[in-house]
């Protein structure tokens, strides 16, 4: 599918239909596979940008959130205040200091091994990381560089609860991310 304005708009509607039905976060690669008419993965991001802008401009109750190459269709964060039924789905607990520090390190780090969390906090963080994984606030993915290790990322559930559309829009994101990138624990 080439990239005329109109074709992008058609693809954006198709993506919206898939995101709506699927509900869960979905990768760009998978979207391209489901919509063969897209012409390939490279055509998906412009259509997602178009969809995001259309939702925003038309004052839709829905919006797009993303993490890396995954996207999800969700409700607009500010509507939580006027829709009663939304509140019950939430993470109601307060964050302990350990949980808050760990979430902050992972979310600003983008994707970090547990050793980074341990090193910055100065304490073994295996239990708090596990706790956050079980609660669904963090995700893990196999570390490509190390056999049995994992890297940790903020989950979509966390992004939704924080009301941010992607980690990059968090306050001071670039600054803190750079600090974390420069700061690697010894192996």
């Amino acid at each position, binding site marked *: 599918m080439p990239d005329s304005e109109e074709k992008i708009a058609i693809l954006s509607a198709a993506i919206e239909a898939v995101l709506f039905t699927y509900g*869960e976060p979905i990768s760009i690669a998978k979207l391209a596979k489901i919509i063969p008419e897209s012409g390939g993965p490279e055509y998906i991001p412009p259509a997602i940008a178009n969809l995001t802008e259309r939702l925003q401009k038309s004052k839709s109750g829905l919006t797009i959130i993303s993490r890396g190459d995954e996207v999800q269709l969700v409700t607009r964060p500010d509507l939580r205040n006027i829709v009663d039924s939304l509140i019950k*789905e939430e993470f109601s607990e307060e964050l302990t200091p*350990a949980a808050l520090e760990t979430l902050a390190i992972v979310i*600003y780090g983008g994707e970090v091994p547990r050793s980074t969390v341990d090193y*910055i906090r100065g*304490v073994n963080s295996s*239990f708090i990381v596990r706790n956050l994984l079980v609660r669904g606030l963090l995700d893990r993915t196999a570390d490509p560089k190390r056999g049995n290790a994992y890297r940790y990322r903020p989950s979509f559930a966390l992004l939704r609860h924080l009301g941010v559309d992607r980690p990059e829009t968090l306050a001071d994101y670039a600054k803190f991310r750079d600090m974390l990138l420069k700061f690697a624990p010894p192996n």
Partner: protein
Amino acid sequence: MTYEVATERFSGPLDKLLELIEEEKLPITEVSLAKVTDGFIKFLDAQSGTLDPNILADFLVIAARLLLIKSKVLIPDLTLSEEEEYEVKDLEARLEIYRIFAARGGSASSHIAGYWETRNASFGRPFLFIGSETVFLPGNRLTPETIREAAARVFEELTALTPETSKIKTTIITIEEKIRELMERFTRAINSNFRELTKNHSRSEVVAMFLAVLHLLKRQEISVEQGEQFGDIMLKKK
């Protein structure tokens, strides 16, 4: 379970260190770290009976670094090895970055806490297909054997969580034993001076020795004298 609870509630050695530094309104420098070392050791001493051994181990690691820094500031002759210099700089860098992520008002943590508490949040919805049709789609991988393997994998990972804890415990016993051993040796040869006592010893032994001096001082088993700032320390048995 108690360890889980303890680690959730307890913010750890860097948090304590930061608290001490902030109490004194000091910048994060070697001199400041040397200044708060005693307070840190005092806290550790008071807590050591009640702290979980795993957490105590985390504290001891930082205590050893602090003592290294303190000896560097107090004993100007002491030249540190490359590795030790790295350890000193590393602790400063870690504190700087921890200060930003610390739950005690670090700006990154404050940002996240702010988003967490705001009344804005988005919601998703699970896959719409649920319950709409009866399907059975096992795929090609589902056999009694793959299920058994999967169960074995799960429990292997679960059991692996436990040894990690016991390994930490072994390390800490070694640290504590080493200190005790050094203190005995030190008590025998007490009427001496620090420089002589530590001559030809490795840096880590010098640090451990310094830790021993502090302990004995605290127990009032020795008295110390230092003629001038950065001068040699004379040690006397009481």
